[in-house]
């Protein structure tokens, strides 16, 4: 793979995820999918959890992916990068 493709994919994906995730959070906190005014405090708390938890997971995943993309890649058998070799562990 060419050296510019991996960062291009990474940053495009981060931008796409950021736009979509901000839209989802905006909808929940300020838009059409926010809990009704009469909803109980417990319901609001759990609803907030269901929206924030995937957002945090996604942010963590993107951070881990960023590290995997930028990690030094010592050549393995056949010149494959280390991250790809990890995916072959069971073969």
């Amino acid at each position, binding site marked *: 793979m060419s050296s510019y493709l991996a960062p291009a994919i990474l940053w495009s*994906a981060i931008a796409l995820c950021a736009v979509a995730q901000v839209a989802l959070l905006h909808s929940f906190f300020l838009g*059409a999918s926010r809990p009704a005014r009469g909803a109980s405090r417990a319901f609001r708390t759990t609803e907030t959890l269901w929206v924030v938890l995937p957002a945090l997971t996604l942010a963590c995943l993107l951070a881990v*992916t960023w590290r995997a993309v930028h990690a030094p890649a010592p050549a393995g058998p056949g010149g494959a990068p280390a991250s*790809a070799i990890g*995916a072959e*562990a*069971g073969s």
Partner: protein
Amino acid sequence: MTGVAVPRTAERTLTADLIALTKPRIISLLLVTTIAPMYVAGRPGILLVLLVTIGGYLMAGGANAVNMYLDRDIDDRMARTRLRPIPSGRMQPQAVLAFGVALATAATFLLAFFVNVLTAALALAGFYFYVFIYTRWLKRTTPQNIVIGGAAGAFPPLVGWAAVAGRVDLTAIFLFLIVFYWTPPHFWALALLKQHDYGRVGVPMAPLVWGERETMRQMLWYTLILIALTTLPVAFGAFGVGYLVAALALGGLLLWGVVRVLRAGQWTARAWWVYKYSLLYLALLFVAMVVDRQLAL
């Protein structure tokens, strides 16, 4: 021949009902997302693939049967589900519960003894998540039921991966999240079409709580995240350019379908298209992963 003869039609009906309890059409896609990751993780033997297929079917089938037991009070009031074995009166609820638990137990032992403990634990976690987190808790309490409940359907890739690799790594987590983020646009397309059924039984599906347009907008946001996630494994070298092209083409078509729903006044036919295409999308995406990896090995 001794014993009481069972009428052939009744025997066939019972067999058909037992199979129907496992929801075989849904399981067929789950098995694609179980078996394909095995060939992404390595080159499994045919016996291992067979064991994981049987174990996966039994576990998912058990979860589906227990789901039918727990949802028996609403299934008879929904057009989509009222012909199921319990609401139609052909099977007793306790028998269905016992059948579901027996299938899950058999799957756990099969996977633990003949594959590995991690695979069995992940499959069982998927069972518990579907039964207790989705069906018992989220389904009837929150419009986020499909988002969080989608995790239950995302366990199969982890199961397949763990069966071959004996562990879970970054690529496997991506496969999990791809199914997780695929679930809202897929299922909300159906929820838009069946919202009155859900409304009748008090299940707070997104279109009923947020409205149709907001649900469609959220389908769009989840589709964008899904497309992004399908490309990222290429960035850290898990898949090659061939897979990237397939992921972008398949994802682009899904995005086009969702945008068409969002922009339509009469969206029924377009929502059906998204629902059906999303099934094909997930299957083809996983096939593309296998082809890419097997050609690279």
